Structure formats: structure tokens, C-alpha cells
């Protein structure tokens, strides 16, 4: 049958019915799929929340153990400037006191700006990030032992965790016996480590 033989009036009703059925069918299918996906999303969210909170509830005893064991250490590290803000003023004060107590002829320092630090060994920082400040010390010493006296003073009194990275000791020539004699010149670089939250949130206790 050719198109010109078609009596479109005869087909009009059927075409309308087909179009209505098609549009209604697609609409209810789309709406039902939308409803199903939304409910599935809600369920996944609530289920994940339930699993998370139930696990935390079940692990609350374990959390208590962790808090009892590690929170005092955490506070101690925080107070000692290892976690949270670094204590530069304290470092300088300790250096000044040590210079006076040890009677060093001279000690000059220079602290560079703090930078993210990646050690040469492996670490598991979790949500934290390690930063370090490089401190350069130039000293005149009566003898080599004064360098270790300085380190001992820093170990005992300075708030922070440091590690010497480079040290150079050199003899100045003739050895003199006076207490303020500068028989040895020393220069050292110290890395002062600080642990902070990686997202930048300040740790407050």
C-alpha cells in the first residue's frame, strides 16, 4: 500500500493512543527509576552511617584504651612543641641561657622559615603532616665538649624535637687554657620538627 492510499483519519486515534501510552509509560518509568535511585541513595547513606556509628560504638572501649594510653603522651608532645605550634622563642631563650651558663665566647643563630618535611626514612603520617625549621648555629668553643653541652641544654630545656643534620668543627690553631678562649670553631644545622594536621586545622587542647 502506498502512502497516498493512507486514510490518516483512520489512524489518528491509534497514533494519539500510541503517543499517549508512550509518553505516559516513559514518564512513569522515569519517575519510578528516579524514586528508586533516590531511595537507594538514602539507604546507602543511612546504612553507611549506621555501620560507621555501630563500629565506633563497638570500638568505644578500644577508643578509651587508646585515649588512656596515648592522650597523655599527646598532651606532653603538644606542650613540648612537637605537636601543634613550634616554640621558637623558647629555643632562643634556651640558647641564650646555655651560652651564658657554658660561657661560650660566641653563639649566633639563624632560623629559616618552616617548610613541609619529608624524611629519608618511611613514616605513616595519617591525617598529619611533618614540618621542619632549619636552625643554623655558629659557635666559638673552648673545646669540642661544649658543642655537646649545648645539645644537652637543648635536649633538656628546649620545647621541641630537633636533630642535627650537619656539623663542622675546626681547630683555630694554638690551644689556650682560658675559660673564654675560642680554640674550636663550630657550625651546625639543626632541623626542628613539628607535627600538624594535614588539613591545616589548628590543634587545640
Amino acid at each position, binding site marked *: 500500500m502506498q502512502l497516498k492510499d493512507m486514510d490518516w483519519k*483512520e489512524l489518528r486515534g491509534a497514533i494519539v493512543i500510541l503517543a499517549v501510552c508512550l509518553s505516559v509509560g516513559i514518564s*512513569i518509568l522515569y519517575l519510578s527509576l528516579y524514586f528508586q535511585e533516590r*531511595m537507594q541513595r538514602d539507604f546507602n547513606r543511612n546504612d553507611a552511617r549506621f555501620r560507621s*556509628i555501630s563500629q565506633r560504638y563497638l570500638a568505644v572501649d578500644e*577508643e578509651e584504651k587508646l585515649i588512656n594510653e596515648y592522650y597523655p603522651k599527646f598532651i606532653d608532645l603538644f606542650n613540648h612543641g612537637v605537636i601543634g605550634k613550634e616554640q621558637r622563642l623558647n629555643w632562643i631563650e634556651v640558647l641564650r641561657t646555655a651560652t651564658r651558663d657554658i660561657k661560650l665566647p660566641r653563639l649566633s643563630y639563624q632560623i629559616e622559615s618552616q617548610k613541609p618535611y619529608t624524611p629519608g*626514612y618511611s*613514616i605513616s603520617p595519617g591525617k598529619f603532616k611533618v614540618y621542619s625549621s632549619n636552625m643554623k648555629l655558629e659557635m666559638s668553643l673552648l673545646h669540642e665538649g661544649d658543642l655537646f653541652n649545648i645539645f644537652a641544654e637543648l635536649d633538656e630545656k628546649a620545647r621541641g624535637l630537633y636533630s642535627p643534620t650537619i656539623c*663542622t668543627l675546626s681547630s683555630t690553631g694554638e690551644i689556650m687554657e682560658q675559660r673564654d678562649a675560642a680554640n674550636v670553631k663550630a657550625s651546625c644545622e639543626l632541623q626542628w620538627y613539628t*607535627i600538624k594536621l594535614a588539613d591545616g586545622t589548628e590543634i587545640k587542647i
Partner: protein
Amino acid sequence: MISSLISRFRFTHRRLLFLSAHKAAIYHWNGNDLGSSYLFDVDEEGRAYFERYLNETTKLPTYILTDYFEEEYRQDTVPHVFGSDRQAILLRKKGRLFRDTPYFYSRVIGREEDGRKDDRILMTALTNPDLVRPWVTMLDNYKVPLAGVYSVPLFTESILKHLENPSDHLLIVTLQSLSGLRQTFFQDREFRISRLVQMPRYGTEPYAPYIRDEIEKIRRYLNSMRLITEEDPLEICFLLSGDLLDDLKKHHEDSALVRYEFYNIDELLKSVGSSQTITTPFSDKLFAHQLLKQKPRSYYASSRERRYFTMRTLRYTMIVSGVLLLLGSAVWSGFNLMEGLSYKQRSLIADNKARFYNQRYEMARERLPDIPVEPEDLKVAVELAHRLGDYKTSPLKIVQAVSAVTGRYPDIRLDEFRWTASVDPNLDMSNPGASQAPPAGKIGYSNVSYKDTGYDYYQIAHIKGHLEPFNGDFRKAIDQINAFTEELGNRDGIHDVSILSLPLDVSSNTSLSGNTGSDSREADFSIRVVLGIKHAA
């Protein structure tokens, strides 16, 4: 209106228009059997009544069954080709044989066994289209779906399957109330010829003598056409009923050349599933019943004449497709809805449980102090600080080790001590950034393995010194330095000691000059010391 709508969707209802030269009859098919019937004259008045009938009835699919004298049959052969080539050949043959009629039908009935094995075809035509066309036009005007135009002789072939063991040479004799006596001959169950004879009005004269005479005529014709021979007995089947059938039985006995079979069309009609009763010898109802039941493909109607039937099929296809699509999407949507409701229910349960556990968790946490980070992060931070502390180092150990050995060699004076710490024992202190693989054999580099040494990291020192006093005896000075480094290397934790420079470089790949007459007063040297460090257990 409702009944009209219902009748529009009665898919099983249809009707047959039986046409002859003098009469036309309508047979309705109500579901699974013949229903009411109407009779019309083939004249202006009859066609007016028929139009009124069409006007007052629904547009049921209509099958036209004709029984005219003006129907011709030809058998021919055509090359075994397909598609447009066959169409062209058939059109050429139609133009030659049946030029003036559109009601032409052809079909392949077999293939030649010899030669190029042409197709054997049967061609038939209603040679007077004016007999059919007015009725078809009326149906088209009233938008009645015309399913097809058929003819009694061709359709008789569909009756064969209801006969018991029909012979290869079979003559079927039927009487139609509208047209008369129809004799149709089949050879090997293939239609060959058919003949229509007008009969006197039923009841005015006995039919048996007429039928006997007409059978004799067609037998003679079949003989003359060599369609039957003495070796092939002819089977004559009478599809009749009542007294006429009994009368014929009495006067026809089987012989060597002819075998007679008598079928009561009333019983035959019932055997094919009709509840109709036939009291006359006419087989109109049998043909009507079979045609409306079997709904064969149209023989004669053109596609344009069948357009309302095609559109009806298209219309129902679209409606059914639409409804099925709607039902399908409704079912699918139902499943989605049920699944969504199931998720909603489970989501509510999960939410309630989460709230419950959250309350319990908060209650449990009340006895714990407020902490700035999660409990597990406390552990991470503390362990991270310890890890950094583990690698905290000091030059004290290596200074102590060097000092202890230096004390045993009073002539050795240290001038400079450069120190660093690294996990790489091969660190090049002059170039700390690129230190992993110092050149092998080069003086001053340990080039020792730092794997599986058991140390966690290393302290590396470059020491410069000189011998004092020095009297110019280089051999003694070198021996002293060698002894010093050897003793240093034997101390606990010393991983490696190497000499960077000696007071006198006696290796063959350097130039050497001096004055043996004067005592040299300088005996400088430098060494590299690597101390391995282990963390406290």
C-alpha cells in the same frame, strides 16, 4: 456508543460477502461460528440495500468469496527466477492472458523435472471485473476493511484436508445456492480446472438428473484433455445432503474407472466445528465457515482495495503496542516502586539504628575526655613523633670513637671535623644531593652496601689532620695513618673507614715530585669514617 466501542474492538468478529452473478449473501462470524446472514439481489435495489446494511453495521473485516462463470484458469511454466524478474514475467503473462482485469492471481505449484526445471505456475483471473468492483467500491466508500477477494473453485482446495484419503484424480461436486453446480478437478491434490453450471431454482425440478448429465460432460472433457486415463480411476466426491445425496447414491455405483464418495455437508460442517445445521444440499455455509475460520491470504484484491484492512491492522498494532508498552512500563515501574519502597523501609530502619547507636555512643563517650583529634589519630601522632625521635642523632658517638683512638697516637693532630647523618652510608658530603652511587674504587668513597647491614642510619664524618712532629719520613707517617684508620675501623659500630688523602700520594696515576735534600715539615691527611646506628630495641 459503548456498544459501538466494544464492537470496534471485537477482534474475532468478521463477515463474508458471497458473490454470484445473481445474488449476494452476507455471513457473520461471531467469535467461533457463523452467525446471522443476509441476502441481496445483484441489481440496483440489492446494492442499495447492501449500502444501507453497511451504513447500519460496524466496519467488520470483510472477506469476499466469488463464484462466477467468468473465472479462467491457466497453467504455464516460467523460468525459476525471483523478485522483480518474476514479477516482470508474470505481468507480461497477465497482459497477454488477462489484459482487462485487475483481479489476477498466480502461484507456483511445482517445478518441471526436466530441462531447465522451470517453475510450474497456476494463473487465474476474474475476467469480468465489473461483477466485483461495485461491491468493492461500496466497501471502500464505507471504509470497510476488505481482507481479500477469493473464489469458490480455488478455495475448494482447502476442503481437501477434510476428506478421507482423496484420490490423485479427484472431482469435487458442490452446489451453491447463489451460483449453482460447481465441479472442481484436482490432480495430485493440485487445482486443475473447475466448471460452474447454473441450476434450476431449488425445489422446482429434481437435481439428480442434472448432476448426472453434468458429471458425464466433465468426464468426457477430462478424457479429452487426457487429464484422466483408464489406468487412473477418477474419484468423484459429492458434498451434498438430504434426499439429493441419497438419490445420487442409488444411481452411482463404483466401477473400474470411477469411484464415488458421498459426504453429507451437514456432518462435514459439524466435524469442522460448526453448530450450524444444513437442511439443503447447498454448501454455501461450509465455504463461508471454512473461509472465515481459516482467513487465507487474499487471492484477487489489490493492496489499494485492501487498504482499510491494512490500516485496521496497523491501527490495532499501534494500539496494542501502546497498551503493551504502557503495561510493560507499568510493570517495570511497579518493580522499581516496590524496590524503592523496600529501600525506603530499609533506609528508615538503618536511620533508626544509626540514631540509637549514636545515642549510645555519645553516652559512652561522655565518660571520656574531649580530645582534639580522633582516638586512633592520637596514636598516629604519638608514634609519628617517636619515629622522628628515633632518628634524632648527635655527632657525640663518632667524636667519642675518633677521640678514643686519637689518644693512642700522640703524633696525630685533628684540624677539621665535618659530620652529617644519613640513611645512605655512601653519601657524598661534598654533594649531598647526588650521593647514591659514588664511583667504585675512588679514594674517599666507601661504596659499601647499605642493605641488610642491620643499621637504621649512619653518621658520616670527614676528618682532616696532620702528623706533628714530622721529620720527612713519609713511610713512617703513612704507616701511622694506616694503623690509626685500621684501629678506628675495628671499633664497635664503625661501618667503614677510608683514607681520602695521605701525606704523599704514591699511586701510579698521579705525578710526584720533591727534594730529597730537605726535610718536609707537613704531613697532612684526611679520612672518611662511617658509623652505623641502631635504634634502641
